[in-house]
């Protein structure tokens, strides 16, 4: 069995990700289309929330992935910081826009869902507000990557930003709990809860979560490949200029 670190070699990563990509994206499309179709057409309305319950198939997966993408970026940044594998830094860069879009989807679907249920588009509820702050963190992180010319310096600076941002994201989360009691319900999918959402909603929801996850995986592989190519292009052009 070979070591995981072999994939830190860009050539090896390109070969493996190229072989994986069609499968992952195929599965992602299958799960997303299947899950959303199942949720949209084949599930009953909730007796209290009516048809708005269908928004859950977008809202919950996007929200789960919005947080996990940041975690993945944190891990990738740490790997870059400790082991200096370029692919890792580029993967973190590639993931950030995906995370930002997922966060935006979670916020938007939440607003559209909140309007009929709570009677307001936006409520300064701790959960909503912490997602808004998470969105700002994503924007800052992306802007930092764009602003620095030297790619290694950009990778290092965004790593520091990601570490500090993660700490502050957690602090903000608890500060917001202190600040305001919310309208948002508690976790509806925890493993230890006795009462989760009913099975009819549960299976399509899990399919959608898998779909969002696979979509994220496919996009990160794909975008990391682009970043590796862009890095190589940059190096070649720099060589030509000095030659």
């Amino acid at each position, binding site marked *: 069995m070979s070591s995981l670190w072999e994939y830190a070699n860009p050539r090896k990563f390109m070969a493996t990700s190229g072989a994986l990509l069609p499968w992952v994206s195929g599965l992602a499309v299958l799960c997303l289309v299947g899950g959303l179709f199942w949720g949209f057409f084949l599930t009953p309305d909730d007796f209290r929330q009516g048809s708005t319950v269908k928004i859950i198939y977008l809202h919950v997966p996007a929200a789960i992935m919005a947080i996990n993408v940041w975690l993945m970026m944190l891990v990738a940044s740490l790997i870059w910081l400790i082991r200096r594998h370029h692919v890792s830094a580029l993967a973190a860069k590639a993931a950030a826009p995906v995370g930002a879009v997922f966060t935006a989807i979670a916020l938007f679907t939440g607003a559209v*869902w909140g309007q009929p249920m709570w009677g307001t588009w936006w409520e300064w509820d701790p959960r909503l507000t912490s997602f808004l702050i998470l969105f700002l963190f994503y924007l800052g992180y992306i802007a930092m990557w764009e602003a620095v010319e030297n790619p290694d310096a950009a990778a290092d600076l965004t790593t520091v930003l990601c570490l500090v941002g993660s700490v502050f994201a957690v602090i903000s989360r608890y500060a917001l709990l202190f600040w305001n009691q919310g309208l948002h319900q508690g976790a509806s999918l925890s493993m230890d809860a006795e009462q989760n959402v009913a099975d009819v909603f549960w299976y399509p929801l899990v399919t959608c979560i898998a779909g969002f996850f696979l979509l994220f995986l496919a996009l990160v592989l794909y975008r990391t490949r682009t970043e590796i190519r862009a890095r190589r292009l940059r190096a070649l052009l720099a060589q030509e200029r000095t030659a």
Partner: protein
Amino acid sequence: MPDLGRYATEVLTAYGVSIVALAALVWLSVRQARRVRRRLEDVEARRRAPG
């Protein structure tokens, strides 16, 4: 098409905007990938030609 009752606008907006956002993300990724790939192939071909 299922009967969405009086919340049809909300549900359809949520689905519509989300799917558009995901599609835009995929489209931008593909466009960027194609552009970088083409430029890289150009440069590599140029370097191979004289040497």
